[in-house]
């Protein structure tokens, strides 16, 4: 049969955003693919060049609407590297709690979106129900529902509010029970197993060479995690291990990538509970905004010729900011801001993973890598 190119997207249920996947098909079999990105390119890097360091945080929140907190924290760590700021330990614990809650919320959003992708609609409603609990907790911290603008250079915006620890413990414990419900819903659904098992194989060495990290890599049976390999924040103080999945001989398939995210939600939930117990001065004390216990003093101008960067474990892989400081001539503004988006690198790899499978497998494979176009296009 003759081969032909078909265009999936920019409006297609598979895309989870606005982009096009050009697929070359031979009958029902995928022969070649080519992703086409840039539909929502906003020029964030250029805009950041005329904003000062505190103003940029809000733009970083908006890079990914499902995982705003991890992105703004990723940026803040790079700025603190540039300006050489030391952060109070209590602030680091609060950041850890915020980031891990956001990671759970992001994985829940993914799980909720992945269900309808492959014909399991009820799971979406269930996942969004629990995501709502996480968003309520994050709203208590940051003040808004999706774009929190929570971290500050040198600390955090606000301390944990009164009763936050109690409510978090209750909600996270409830959530840990509810995870079993999702597992029952997915693992006992024959349709889900048929559509995810045995499709979209990927091997760890190949993934690393292609620049794929995070949960997608750990699904391949490797326990590499930036939180343990290059420990930042207070991850070294907590008792935890990154989850690893046992893949099949041909590599990790879509089912392994689903399993690893469920396990990661569990690990993050346990981490939040432990951090609430270990936080210095206790989780129930409250400091006013700007107190030295939660916000260190930071310079607003960077030294001449300085640069800062920080590898950060985002919910989708390694995110990173590179900042070139401007010196006196640029005032408080950076000279160049460069963003490393995990999905920008992963989408081309995921597109290669589809070659050899059927057209009907494309949503299952693409969805299992957790694409987010907001951060991809910047």
């Amino acid at each position, binding site marked *: 049969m003759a081969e032909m190119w078909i265009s999936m997207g920019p409006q297609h249920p598979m895309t989870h955003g606005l982009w096009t996947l050009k697929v070359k098909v031979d009958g029902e079999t995928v022969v070649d693919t080519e992703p086409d990105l840039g539909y929502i390119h906003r020029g964030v890097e250029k805009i950041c060049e005329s904003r000062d360091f505190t103003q940029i945080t809000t733009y970083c929140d908006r890079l990914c609407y499902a995982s705003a907190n991890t992105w703004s924290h990723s940026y803040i760590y790079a700025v603190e590297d540039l300006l*050489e700021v*030391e*952060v109070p330990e209590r602030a680091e614990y609060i950041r850890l709690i915020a980031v891990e809650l956001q990671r759970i919320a992001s994985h829940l959003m993914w799980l909720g979106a992945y269900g309808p992708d492959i014909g399991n609609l009820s799971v979406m409603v269930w996942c969004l129900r629990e995501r709502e609990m996480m968003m309520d907790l994050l709203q208590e911290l940051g003040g808004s529902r999706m774009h929190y603008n929570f971290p500050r250079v040198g600390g955090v915006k606000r301390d944990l509010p009164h009763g936050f620890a109690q409510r978090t413990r209750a909600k996270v414990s409830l959530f840990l029970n509810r995870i079993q419900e999702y597992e029952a819903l997915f693992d006992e659904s024959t349709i889900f197993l048929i559509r995810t098992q045995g499709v979209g194989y990927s091997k760890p060495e190949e993934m690393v*060479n292609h620049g794929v990290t995070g949960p997608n890599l750990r699904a391949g049976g*490797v326990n590499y995690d930036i939180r343990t390999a290059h420990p930042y924040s*207070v991850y070294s103080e907590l008792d935890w291990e990154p989850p690893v999945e046992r893949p099949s001989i041909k590599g990790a398939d879509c089912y392994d990538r689903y399993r690893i995210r469920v396990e990661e939600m569990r690990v993050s939930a346990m981490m939040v509970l432990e951090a609430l117990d270990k936080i210095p001065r206790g989780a129930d004390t409250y400091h006013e905004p700007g107190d030295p216990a939660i916000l260190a003093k930071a310079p607003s101008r960077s030294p001449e010729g300085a640069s800062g960067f920080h590898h950060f474990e985002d919910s989708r892989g390694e995110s990173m900011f590179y900042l070139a400081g401007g010196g006196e001539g640029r005032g408080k503004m950076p000279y160049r801001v460069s963003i*490393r988006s995990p999905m920008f690198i992963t989408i081309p790899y995921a597109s290669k993973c589809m070659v050899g499978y059927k057209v009907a497998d494309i949503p299952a494979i693409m969805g299992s890598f957790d694409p987010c176009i907001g951060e991809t296009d910047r």
Partner: protein
Amino acid sequence: MGKVVPTSNQKSAAETMASALSSMDGVDAVVSERKNGTSPRNIVSVDCSNKNWRPLAVCMKVEHGVDYCSMITGIHWPEGSPDKNWEVIYHFMRMGVTDPPVVDGMVQPIVKDPSKLEGKDIPLEIEVRIALPETREPTVASVQDIWVGADWNEKETWDLVGIDFEGHEGMRRVLQPHETPVGFHPLQKQHKLRYHDFEEMYDDVQGFRRKPSDTGKIK
């Protein structure tokens, strides 16, 4: 206590690698210690000349096990010195990831204890900076065939900054529209943002209240 890579191990591994890389021609490698956050990070910080970049890349991949290309950044420094009008900055990481072994038909996941890693398994961060002199056509060698992860990074750097990668196959626009004029790369510094004032930007986004005297003012 979590199992993390100890700072002392990372520091000695970084020093070993920096001294090995420094012996190459046109390469200057040092260990730079960063002190933000809770634990210091030791980074192999490399300055490399343009013509020695390709041998350095091969050496890092083959002899030092640098298996992951994280990001490529291009910077345009029009008011900089004549030898550093452009800069390309590579960020690599050494992950030490291998495919998990198969025993009796079952894959055995690799669960390493990060606190006990040794030799080339110790994770490292590497930063390579290449300064380019004043030119209309900045070009560096492509490393697309060494790390496939550099492929789209190089495409993006060319698309937005205009630094060309010699030997890169399939170069095209990735973030900007395909019909963008040839030679337009928005992160070059001669392209300015339109707004000339923060206040105007927030109060008068569409510019209805712009005065004739504001014509040509830019930020």
